[in-house]
């Protein structure tokens, strides 16, 4: 029996460590197009203290540690490219505290989006969190660590802007806290202590987040989705701009896709509106659709398709079953909203070149300060040619995102290299120094953000 395995068993118990081929196979795969790489061990810790010991062991043995949340980034961010210990963090799934009056939830890193949603619905119906467009198995911590966005991105920004505090196991095995919790107070604010924001966007290369305090927001009694459609992509930026000016809505997304054919080349807005009364709802609908978007409707440039009560939870995994193929991956970008038309047109071209029906989506972040624009490419998991096509399309799209003046959201290795090539050299050097300082043995999620 190898000594690392024995040491891991000592830390987490025999049932939560595996070096069996089945676990190594499963944890070698991302769900997107990234090539698999096997870890040497799969470990499912339960506490930050266990993680601390694992990290110390990994430093001693100089072996990589790759943290995994829901595994739904699709960009290969938790693929153990250089082997080592794959940490499946989903056993750490306690909702530790919900503070109703200060509107935050303190959760362990493995808590899923679905679990928090269900918990709030049941126990705190006046509160909600910004739920991303991912399957409910996506984790809260995994989402903030990649700067995810959710269905409250318009009023409140990125989910990583909603953090009140973090607990992190550093690459050298210290458990640190950040925010008001660090001075023994509650987990109600991240500011104004000195900013040490070293863990978001680094995809686990600078530490392992073990607790997150996440801001919650008022959950109105009535929540629903209105639909608005335009056929001219050039109108989309100004529609975004005008809706955000009203400050009456919770979420604004524009989508366009080749399938079904009757809606191809149309641009559908999904606009989430919430209200505590029928009067409030009527007022908001009137402001948005009569006073603001009425001009498009009257001119025949846009159409109001109605308001449906209730939020449809994201079922994006259905995208994977296009042509019964079981796979998709997307490039997400953070982009000025004015680039929507070009993003759409150029993305459509890439899709057509690779014989993949186009699917694009834009979600408003902030008051039209930016959008997350994504290009999705479906593939057939049983057909290597389609996987290769999707991979090529993804790479071309990474290039496109930067060419159009945006930045790539949660880039995979290819996109990371592109970003680092464009990064200010001093910034890149600072990243390298920070990484070297925090992770002198280079054990954390190697392959990612390697600023050479």
């Amino acid at each position, binding site marked *: 029996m190898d000594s690392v395995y024995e040491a891991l068993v000592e830390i987490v118990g025999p*049932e*939560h460590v*595996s070096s*069996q*081929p*089945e*676990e190594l*196979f*499963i*944890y070698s*795969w991302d*769900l997107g197009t990234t090539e698999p790489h096997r870890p040497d061990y*799969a470990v*499912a810790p339960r506490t930050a203290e266990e993680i601390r010991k694992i990290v110390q062991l990994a430093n001693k043995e100089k072996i990589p540690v790759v943290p995994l949340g*829901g*595994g*739904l980034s699709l960009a290969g961010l938790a693929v153990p490219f250089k082997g080592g210990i794959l940490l*499946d963090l*989903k*056993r750490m*799934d306690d909702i530790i505290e919900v503070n109703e009056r200060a509107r935050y939830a303190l959760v362990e890193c493995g808590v*899923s989006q*679905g*679990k928090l*949603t*269900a*918990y709030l*619905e*049941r126990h705190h119906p006046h509160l909600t969190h910004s739920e991303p467009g991912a*399957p*409910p*198995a996506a984790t809260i911590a995994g989402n903030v660590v990649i700067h995810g966005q959710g269905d409250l991105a318009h009023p409140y920004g990125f989910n990583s802007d909603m953090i009140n505090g973090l607990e992190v196991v550093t690459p050298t095995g210290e458990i640190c806290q950040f925010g008001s919790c660090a001075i023994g107070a509650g987990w109600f604010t991240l500011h104004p202590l000195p900013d040490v924001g070293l863990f978001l966007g680094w995809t686990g290369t600078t530490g392992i987040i073990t607790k997150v305090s996440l801001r919650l927001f008022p959950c109105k009694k009535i929540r629903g989705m209105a639909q608005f459609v335009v056929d001219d992509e050039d109108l989309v930026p100004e529609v975004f701009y005008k809706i955000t000016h009203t400050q009456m809505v919770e979420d604004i997304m524009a989508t366009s896709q080749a399938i079904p054919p009757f809606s191809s080349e149309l641009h559908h807005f999904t606009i989430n509106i919430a209200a505590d009364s029928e009067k409030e709802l009527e007022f908001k609908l009137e402001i948005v659709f009569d006073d603001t978007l009425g001009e498009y409707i009257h001119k025949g440039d846009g159409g109001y398709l109605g308001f449906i009560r209730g939020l449809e939870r994201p*079922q994006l*995994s*259905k995208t*994977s*079953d296009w042509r*019964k*193929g*079981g*796979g*998709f991956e997307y490039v997400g970008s953070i982009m000025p909203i004015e680039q929507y038309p070009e993003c759409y047109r150029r993305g459509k071209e890439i899709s057509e070149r690779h014989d993949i029906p186009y699917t694009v989506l834009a979600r408003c972040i902030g008051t039209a300060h930016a959008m997350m624009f994504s290009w999705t490419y479906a593939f*057939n*998991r*049983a057909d290597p040619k389609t996987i290769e096509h999707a991979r090529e399309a993804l790479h071309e799209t990474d290039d496109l995102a930067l060419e159009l003046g945006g930045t790539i959201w949660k880039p995979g290795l290819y996109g990371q290299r592109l970003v680092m090539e464009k990064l200010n050299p001093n910034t890149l050097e600072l990243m390298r120094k920070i990484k070297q300082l925090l992770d002198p043995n280079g054990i954390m999620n190697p392959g990612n953000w390697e600023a050479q």
Partner: protein
Amino acid sequence: MMALADFEYGDTIHRCFRCGYCKFPVDWTDVNNCPAYARYRMETYSCGGRLWLTRAWLSDEIDWTAHFAHIMFSCTACKNCEAKCPLSFNVDILNMITAAKGEMVERGTIPPLVKEFLENIQRHGNPYGTPKAKRGDWLDGMGLKPYQGQDYLYYVGCIGSYDTRAQEIARALGAVLDRAGVSFGVLGVEEGCDGNDVNMIGEQGLFEVLAEDNIAQFKDLGVHRIVTLSPHAYNAIKNEYPCYEGDFEVLHYTQLLQCLISDGDLDISKGFEARVTFHDPCFLGRWNGEYEASREILQAIPGVTFIELEKNRESALCCGGGGGNFYIDFLGGSPDSPSRRRVREAHETGANILAVACPSCLNMLEDAVKSEELEDKISVQDISEIVAKACGITA
């Protein structure tokens, strides 16, 4: 050796994206509603993990190992995955796992306990390896009549016939049916195994033999209507036997009791003073959509304060006993075992009785109450026992 191309679901199995919906209950309370995933919390033990491993195995990307077999046979066939998967092929995801188990059976590469389970059934007609001659022992002193053309055949099944605790509920139900004046008979030592769990293990050949033997016997005796103690038997007779020309009118006993009570044919006025919660058996609930009969019975009994478990009906957490796991017990031995999770959930409701309607659930959950040291807080009782008490029938 079967290759992926020959696999019945070879053109479908790659469609699992492993999005993880299969782990949740309907309301997304947590990711522990797949009993095997709840127990081991490694992706391999989720439905998606099994499907990806199966595909890899049939494509020669991984070899068969005892661990792989453990992963596959720890599936209890509870159907939570099928209920939650949002994709159009969800009706087949459990079938894919059962077919993969079947391929292991074909190759003779199954875990020793699974082999023992199947051999016992083949040799003795029950999973315990107890002589067939003892199958009627539960009847001793009951005075129940053998089936001779009565309205109903009371089919007890293996657990109710052999397991000491489950024999009590078999007797309780017999006494209740007798009290209600139901015309019924039993097979006693002549009864065979229904085969439901053999089928879930993927031993198609043995299941066919069991089903055909039972069907032939039922037809010889002129059976038209069957009432079962176990939801497992109910499922096999209702959904599988028709494939072998075995068309019988079959009821789970809770359905019959609910009718008797609502028609006023069963006097339950003695009542039952307790705070009762109810655990939905998978083969009654998710497999057959029967969620109401048990609840209507319990709510009709004077003195019962009925409390729902948070995870109920389609969201019920399996006890961990399906797919032969009540015998092979691949999910036992841990506080994370689904049966122990379930009794903790039941205890959290404030109930002092956890009602079940299945001898397998009874065994699994009663053992879990002991493991959790909750004996003085909550006890597991079958609805047949509760009704018997409400009828004033003493053991």
